[in-house]
């Protein structure tokens, strides 16, 4: 619709996740109206993040150094590993302030229909950590959907011979929710995973 670089920018922005053609156009015009210094700063940041940020060699989280802040933090419990699907899941767990161990990013979940098998994930690195480090517990925190559950079942099978304690995040009712609105699968799991209070 537009000419030259403006249309190229709209097309490029339209390829971003969650950005449709209309939003892409709105963003492009926003950049046009913004002063050059701000746009330059954004462009520099985009390049910088691409050049500097890499994966932590130990856990696979995003880091600007070979080892991330969490892996370097000596106050954290080195005997517990929390296995997560994506690096962005770390911030969700960190917000709880309940977990003081370290992480291991799988880089996805097993999804045969998408051609993703155990070899495409960082499962070998996990078994190597469990063997070489003094790990007492592995918390499997993959998403509570079918692929996450199947990946958890696979990890249990792989880690069982090492004798390490493997635990899974509990499933159940959201805090502040009501039983009436819970679906039967979630409620069923909440019942199965009930805990003793007296």
């Amino acid at each position, binding site marked *: 619709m537009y000419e030259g670089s403006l249309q190229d920018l709209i097309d490029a922005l339209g390829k971003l996740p*969650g950005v449709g053609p209309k939003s892409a156009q709105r963003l492009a015009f926003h950049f046009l109206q913004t002063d050059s210094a701000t746009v330059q700063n954004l462009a520099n940041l985009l390049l910088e993040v691409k050049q500097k940020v890499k994966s932590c060699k130990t856990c696979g989280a995003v880091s600007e150094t070979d080892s991330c802040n969490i892996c370097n933090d000596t106050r954290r419990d080195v005997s517990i590993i929390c296995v997560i699907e994506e690096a962005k899941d770390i911030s969700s767990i960190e917000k709880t302030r309940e977990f003081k161990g370290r992480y291991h990013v799988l880089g996805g979940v*097993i999804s*045969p*229909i*998408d*051609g993703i*098998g155990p070899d495409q994930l960082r499962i070998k690195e996990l078994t190597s950590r469990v063997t070489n480090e003094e790990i007492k517990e592995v918390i499997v925190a993959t998403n509570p*959907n*079918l692929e996450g*559950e*199947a990946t958890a*079942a*696979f990890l249990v*099978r792989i880690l069982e011979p090492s004798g390490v304690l493997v635990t899974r995040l509990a499933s159940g009712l*959201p805090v502040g*929710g009501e039983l009436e*609105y819970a*679906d*039967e*699968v*979630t409620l069923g799991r909440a019942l199965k995973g009930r805990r003793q209070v007296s």
Partner: protein
Amino acid sequence: MPQYRDEGIVLRTQRLGEADRIVTVLTRNTGRVRAVAKGVRKTTSRFGARVEPFGHIDAHFHIGKSLDILSQVESFYSYGATLSQDYAKWTAGQAMLETAERLTPEEKEPATQQYLLLIAGLRALIKNEHDANLVLDSYLLRSLSLAGYSPTFFECARCGDEGPHRAFSVEAGGTTCQECRAASSVVPAPATIALMSALLTGDWNVADASELKYRREASGIIAAYLQWHIERGLRSLRMVER
């Protein structure tokens, strides 16, 4: 907005936007349907857990411009809850779902027999009465048969000459006589041909009594036969634990 209600099996889900999913459902009466399930990735979703793959659901759809909208879902049974606890069975089940999707290429073209076969296959998988790989191979042969690609295991697939014949040709569509035998034919053990025939007809006494080496040979031939007819390999079949 026009709407319809149908029961079906969830074949796959794909992420859409921030919190939605595109759900592919093989329904009893409408065939394969792709519909948007809004907000199901949020923890507050009332039916997110019901629209997971392997879910047997009773669904209410609103007809949309490009994709339908999944507005209400009730669950009959979640095969996935059982299957996901056993990795080998889960991978076999995934191959079934992918096959069902590929053998129903046209959206909203009724495929009731494929739907019923898929339910029977998933039930057999969780019942533990037969080996998971045998159930999968039987399902693959039968679904191909329903799609019009039934292999022959007795007559010659080319000239119809009465068998039994030793050579099996994927291109010809089954066993072939000496005259019709193609260069790419394989010569499986007679017990392997008997096993494949039993899997196609549902003769479980023969199938259950078969030896592992014949099961492996049959699986390889069935996979090649499937790949030939659907033109692309099944991604999930490569990951099935044999």
